[in-house]
């Protein structure tokens, strides 16, 4: 079992391992970064530091739309805000038993919902790769 923050993208639900989550915050005003590729929604500042905000929906192929909150994730020195509709709760999710869609470690059925368990390092790799 892994403790995960459950986040909502429209009707879809994804889990982010708490080990990678630094905080959940309101998405402040974004400044676009021309040339940063399609997966970067922009740059915001949080506690005096700059933070790139990632279009999680586009990366995952989930329904796209404006998002109000960000889940700040970390992997080593890399840090990004994942744009989501809401962070709903922290719950212990079982390990996925089979590898699943891109950028996830698979999916699990939990309390009647299908939840994609995000692979944060792979997500950030994909963002890095798409930054021209």
């Amino acid at each position: 079992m892994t403790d995960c923050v459950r986040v909502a993208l429209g009707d879809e639900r994804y889990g982010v391992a708490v080990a990678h989550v630094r905080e959940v915050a309101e998405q402040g005003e974004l400044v676009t970064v021309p040339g940063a590729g399609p997966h970067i929604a922009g740059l915001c500042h949080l506690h005096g530091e700059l933070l790139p905000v990632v279009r999680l929906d586009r990366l995952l192929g989930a329904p796209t739309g404006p998002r109000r909150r960000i889940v700040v994730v970390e992997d080593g020195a890399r840090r990004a805000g994942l744009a989501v509709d809401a962070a709903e709760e922290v719950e212990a999710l079982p390990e996925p038993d089979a590898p699943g869609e891109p950028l996830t470690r698979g999916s699990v059925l939990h309390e009647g919902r299908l939840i994609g368990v995000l692979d944060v390092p792979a997500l950030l790799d994909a963002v890095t790769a798409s930054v021209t």
Partner: protein
Amino acid sequence: MDERLLEIFREEALERVDRMTAVLLAAEQGTGDAAAVAELFRDAHSIKGSASMLGHDEVGALAGAMEEVLAPARERGALGPAAVPALLGGVDAIRAAVTGDLGAIEPAVAALRDLLTGDAPPVPTRARRPASSAPTAVPARTAAPTPATAPAPARPATPQRMLRVRAESVDELLAAVGETALHERRFEHLAGRDRTVDEALHQELERGETLVGDLQDAVLGLRTLPLETVVGGLPRAVRDIATETEREVRLQLEGTDTPLDRSILDGIGELLVHLLRNAVSHGIEPPDEREALGKPRRGTIRIHAEQRGDLVAVTCADDGRGVSPELLERAREHGSLADLLAAPGFSTADAVSDLAGRGVGLDAVKHHVEGLGGSLEVTSEPGAGTGVTMLLPLTLAIVTVLLVERAGQPFGLPLSGIERAVRGERMHDLHGRRSLELDGTTVPLIDLADVLGTEAPALEAGAPVLIIASGGRRVAVACDRLLGDRETVVKSLGPLLAPVPGYLGATILGDGGIALLLDPAHLVRAADTVAAGRERSAAAVSRPAPKVLVVDDQFTVRELERTILEAAGYRVCTAEDGLAALTALDREVDVECVVSDVEMPGMGGLELLEAIRGQAGRSTLPVVIVTSRDDAQMLAKGADAGADAWVVKSQFDQQALLDTVGRLISLQ
């Protein structure tokens, strides 16, 4: 001698001896690796350097003796326990000396000399004090116990009250102050909207703003200091080194008002002494030799500092003999002169001089600079001199920028890169490119929105134009309006956005907005690419983007390659092994390049390659093999089978892949 310099030396030396004590105690227990021994050696060498620079000759001699004992240990990569007691004695004597008690130095030097001449007593304990047996206890620095044999302190320290603070704490403080300033401004904004608020409140708000401003300045002051605060001892150091090596040298200091981040500045004085030692003893020729060469008898060493975008370049350049042409040739093969000269144990002087030591100078400098996230550049011309440049990051330095606006978004440009701002009035068009008439000549004119590739309404007539100069070239950049200049704290975009070209970083504005800082060098280069880009987009209409087939059994690798290629504008299809790839090729007839892994279950990459080469009509289809193995046998096998190019996974970077695919497709 400047009391501040002495205080800095004391702090540094104490930090080093604390570290040395821990390593020595570990060595006594038989633990500790080659890296620890090398660090021990560097610490002793550094103390030697800065002590003699400040006239602490006794400490310098002691540290030099320790260095001599440590040199063979560094070569071996291990330190035997036998040498530890004498070295610990030396460490303790240094600790006592910097707090004002020189009494322990002489016996410590004697113990080290005994060790060097081979008649060391089995357990020399005479110089050892209790403090060293408890390395975790921080010794009381102002009240070091005086050994019974010691005379009265020869150089009583007048302790200046200093506070050692973690750099991160200052960063946190700065961030908090920044947030406070924003809060203050938002508050003011809200109060300003309410007309019923009385005058007294407005006055308090204004006062609050001033206080927060002062606070911000004070915190910034904690982080940045001009370079001149650490170069005060250098003229003396140069004179001493020159006297000892019988050289005549003049030192020129330039740009010492360049501000540097405090955390970076701390070690710079010491690095400069290393560089000066090298310059005097390896660079500058003896006066007679110089005269015979037609050079002035007295050599010149220039220390020059300047800010270059988000870096500070500190250069130490001499007009001495330079390195040999053979060495330059070796450097070309080796990669860079800096890497070659900084290889451990490398020295350009044949004889080991007392001053320059064993080439450890550049080794230590490079190590330190890279530890700060910077880099070292060395240029040399045989017979004419050598220049060593430390490129240091400027994570928190203050840059004055001009803020400009295009399509409603603010951008900053370092004022140092702007020649001037003019109205865009006299413009000319030729070959579809626009230029601005300026002082009887023309400068290429580009729209900031075109450089950035963003959608924007057309510029108004007479819109402001900035003349940007970089690397000897000029470009005129048009924008909607100028918002004025201000001092800003440059923040890094972070590792995720660092690869995006064209930005030096960003800054948070007073109103809470963010302005990206543009790199003048990028704007100048963009003058060519913006025009080329227009041609490309015209060509793209007539021909669909090339399609690439990516073959790999690992999902992440496949997706990574797909994203990279798609972001560069290619169409991509994928397959998870060789057989699937062949099926895909039959289905997707317009594939123009295949990128394949070697080891895959079922049909691997080399078999796939053979199969493709065996098919009519596909014998020239470019195939790039991606492998985790960089061995010659594999490369030979692949070449036999007809691979067009290799990308090694361990060196995998997206640019290499894009360059390779781009080259092969355009060859077709």
